[in-house]
């Protein structure tokens, strides 16, 4: 129909008709593509027109923080999900029009940074819908990341707060619940090949009326997941935490009035935006760039490029991620752009400006550019259950380019940091536990990623998750009471797995697990970085190494220990794998493993990783090298070969002069073996990705995107603004074809042999 033929009234009528008769209220691009703080509402204009007292605003802000902290503690202490116990949660307050204003001081920023999308959806679609409506005492649930969220394991409870009959703000509580009825237990299905494999998909809907959970809907949800008790319990916990938060905010309203609360929330956003713009303005104008490479789809190895260019001009900052890998239509490592931005917001607060308020206003002044249908701006039917992969990259995307902007500044807001380890290195599990209950979830070891090295000190070992300041790595004894998982080795620092540098990255720990007392139990792991290092170094520091999943299958460790309690000297991955003291099949494979059954006593081994190093290894204080040796973090081989230190290996006393000479010799060797840049580049750079690489993303021009998969003889080059998603072949089909080929070749050989014999 041609709009030009319609009168104004007819056009309005047509628009209303179309709006009233939308067949499906799916994720709304108008909401999902806007990460900015909205213009002031009439209520906010009115509140700010009254010239609020800054001291009172500060006082009210403190009261809100205290209320958020209290509700966070409630969820932390009462939540049934392992994630709640370890701090993988948040409570938050939003303005009446759905802008995230403040979160609990120790909560996971990303959760709240996603939560304003579903709240805006509710405001846009349900408030005026006579079949739904929004009124006092209502509560809404949500988990589908397409409507805003990290991934579908996270469930939020969102509640409007009314005061004297008027909606004044929104409150929320979010927990990483884990189990969600996906095609693999534990809520993070790497095997998901479409969005329909991801488990329950809750668009925002009303599950609470008059402050009561609607039992019919709760039952439906319980019936959709493997852990119905967890589903019920945590819905209650989140509801009551939000209700308590509501009571506290109501008390603030009683004491200070609606205008001061509204004004405080708004000023918090606007002040933060103004401060971010001021900080951008003090940085140099120009562009800094970094490239990140993900090496796995968790089903097969495939290099996926994330290209990042940050441009500063005055108080404008533009983050350009164009040139990144296209999305995968049947792999779960995609993310939608709203989730990706939430991770950017988290990383900015965690690594660059930790002193700023934890609010969406930190990111809202920053422009984000992406190619639609890329792995970081995926759309349509694609799965995104393991969106953690690109989102964790987003958390640390800032470190390298922002350090290059910030190094010059006369004032720093936090220490310059190399990137933290950025993989979800933990066991995801599921099955029947020893109490006869079906369950699925993941272990708290995810929270011990090594910190990147700092400009003045080594990184801290296993410091925190890449996505949050506060989280515990869990208590294994408690986990062993609830699940059949037995820890054979835990929290042992992974020796020699180091991001080397003048200051080294903090290191990760080994995790060695088995299962006992269940006839149906299994594990999966969802990590990249087995072929291409994940955590990058800074200013000459090296990245972390690659990491693998090691296994001993076909063994029952409990039987072996019963026969010979000394059969394993120490549960150390390297020692076990090299010395092979146990019977069974030993393998070292990619860190991405879809769910597989673990027969009692089989051994699974992974590592948390190290943060990137900082600075040239030849500048590392030899005494720090000795300290690493004393603490058994590193072998002598690395002390000599990497750091070039000469010392007495018994006493660990440095020979200062010999070390200086060895380091001078290494500098001479560097000059001898290297080439001038232009000469090097002329030989090094190829016009396209090498044929042997499974490669997705731009190569030498961000406007041209390559999709290359040698396994199926596919090489496609397309314009970045016309990206399409790609299907990957089933690795088992490829393996079958490979084996069939081998069988065919052997058959031909045999036939040739037979016919030669007959002759």
């Amino acid at each position, binding site marked *: 129909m041609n709009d030009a033929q319609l009168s104004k009234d007819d056009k309005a009528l047509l628009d209303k008709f179309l709006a009233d008769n939308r067949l499906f209220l799916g994720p709304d691009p108008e909401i999902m593509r806007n990460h900015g703080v909205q213009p002031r509402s009439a209520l906010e204009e009115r509140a700010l027109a009254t010239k609020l007292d800054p001291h009172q605003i500060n006082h009210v802000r403190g009261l809100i923080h205290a209320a958020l902290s209290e509700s966070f503690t409630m969820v932390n202490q009462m939540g049934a999900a392992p994630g709640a*116990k370890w701090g993988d949660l948040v409570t938050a307050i939003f303005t009446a029009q759905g802008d995230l204003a403040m979160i609990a001081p120790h909560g996971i920023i990303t959760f709240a940074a996603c939560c304003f999308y579903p709240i805006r959806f509710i405001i846009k679609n349900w408030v005026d819908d006579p079949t739904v409506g929004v009124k006092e005492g209502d509560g809404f649930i949500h988990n589908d990341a397409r409507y805003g969220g990290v991934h579908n394991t996270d469930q939020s409870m969102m509640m409007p707060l009314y005061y004297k009959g008027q909606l004044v703000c929104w409150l929320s509580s979010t927990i990483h619940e884990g189990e969600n009825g996906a095609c693999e237990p534990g809520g993070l299905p790497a095997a998901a090949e479409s969005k329909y494999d991801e488990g329950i998909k809750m668009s925002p809907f009303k599950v609470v009326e008059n402050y009561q959970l609607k039992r019919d809907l709760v039952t439906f949800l319980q019936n959709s997941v493997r852990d119905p008790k967890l589903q019920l319990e945590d819905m209650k916990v989140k509801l009551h935490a939000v209700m308590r938060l509501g009571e506290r905010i109501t008390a603030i309203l009683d004491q200070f009035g609606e205008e001061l609360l509204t004004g405080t929330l708004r000023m918090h956003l606007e002040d933060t935006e103004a401060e971010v713009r001021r900080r951008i303005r003090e940085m140099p104008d120009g562009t800094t760039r970094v490239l990140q490479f993900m090496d796995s789809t968790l089903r097969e190895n495939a290099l996926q490029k994330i290209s990042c260019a940050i441009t500063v001009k005055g108080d404008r900052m533009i983050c350009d991620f164009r040139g990144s890998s296209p999305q995968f239509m049947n792999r779960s490592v995609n993310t939608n752009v709203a989730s990706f931005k939430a991770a950017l917001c988290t990383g900015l607060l965690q690594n660059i400006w930790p002193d700023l308020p934890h609010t969406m206003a930190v990111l809202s002044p920053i422009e984000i550019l992406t190619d639609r249908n890329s792995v970081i701006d995926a759309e349509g039917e694609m799965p995104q259950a393991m969106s953690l992969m690109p989102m964790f990259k987003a958390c640390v995307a800032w470190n390298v380019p922002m350090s290059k902007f910030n190094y010059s500044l006369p004032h720093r807001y936090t220490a310059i940091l190399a990137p933290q380890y950025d993989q979800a290195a933990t066991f995801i599990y599921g099955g029947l536990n020893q109490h006869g209950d079906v369950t699925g979830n993941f272990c708290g070891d995810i929270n011990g990623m090594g910190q990147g090295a700092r400009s003045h000190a080594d990184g801290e070992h296993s410091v*925190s998750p890449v996505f949050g300041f506060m989280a515990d790595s869990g208590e294994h004894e408690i986990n062993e009471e609830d699940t059949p998982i037995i820890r054979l080795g835990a929290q042992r620092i992974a020796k020699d797995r180091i991001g080397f540098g003048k200051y080294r990255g903090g290191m990760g720990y080994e995790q060695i697990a088995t299962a006992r007392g269940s006839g149906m139990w299994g594990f999966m792991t969802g990590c990249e970085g087995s*072929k291409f*290092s994940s955590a990058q170094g800074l200013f000459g520091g090296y990245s972390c190494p690659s990491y693998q999943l090691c296994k001993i299958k076909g063994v029952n460790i409990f039987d072996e220990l019963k026969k010979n309690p000394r059969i394993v000297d120490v549960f150390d991955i390297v020692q076990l794998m090299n010395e092979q003291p146990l019977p069974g099949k030993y393998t070292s494979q990619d860190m991405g493993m879809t769910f597989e059954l673990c027969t009692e006593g089989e051994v699974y081994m992974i590592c948390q990783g190290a943060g990137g190093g900082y600075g*040239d290894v030849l500048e590392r204080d030899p005494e720090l090298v000795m300290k690493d040796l004393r603490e058994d973090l590193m072998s002598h081989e690395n002390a000599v070969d990497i750091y070039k230190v000469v010392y007495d290996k018994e006493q660990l006393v440095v020979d200062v002069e010999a070390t200086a000479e060895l380091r001078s010799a290494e500098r001479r060797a560097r000059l001898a073996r290297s080439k001038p840049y232009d000469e090097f580049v002329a030989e090094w750079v190829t016009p396209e990705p090498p044929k042997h690489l499974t490669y997705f993303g731009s190569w030498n021009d961000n406007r041209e995107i390559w999709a290359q998969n040698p396994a199926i003889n596919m090489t496609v080059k397309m314009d970045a603004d016309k990206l399409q998603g790609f299907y990957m072949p089933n690795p088992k089909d490829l393996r079958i074809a490979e084996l069939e080929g081998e069988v065919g070749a052997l058959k031909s050989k045999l036939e040739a042999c037979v016919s030669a014999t007959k002759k």
Partner: protein
Amino acid sequence: MKVLVTEYLRINLDTEKWECRRCDHVLNSARENYKRSLRVYDRDPREIHKPLLDTKLYSRTYSPDPTWCRILEYYCPQCATMFEAEYLPPGHPPVYDIEFDIDALKLQWKDRTQVKEPVIGPDLALEKVKMGRAIHASHQHGHSHT
């Protein structure tokens, strides 16, 4: 006026040149990619991240795969300090990582005092983690943090 840019690089605004902060060697124009004045070496990642598992038994040994990942090491042509260690797929063009607007930089530093040694920022990120841990440990939630 000289502006620090990285641990090893600074820009001399008067000469508009990049300089090495370790040996004062004058590099190329600050309006160009500083990497063009450095020396580069294509490092096999197994030399840095050495195999920890027996390579006769396993192909994945904690070393990056050298057919997927290379390390480009950038050295000062005079003192050989390593400015950057860039991990790239083989043959991938090196990234042009710092491209400042020198005219704007001059204006920005016109009224600033020169910073000769880098400022060490507070360890806020780490402090926040430690504070969070302390608060978590003080809660009575069924396990100890001794």
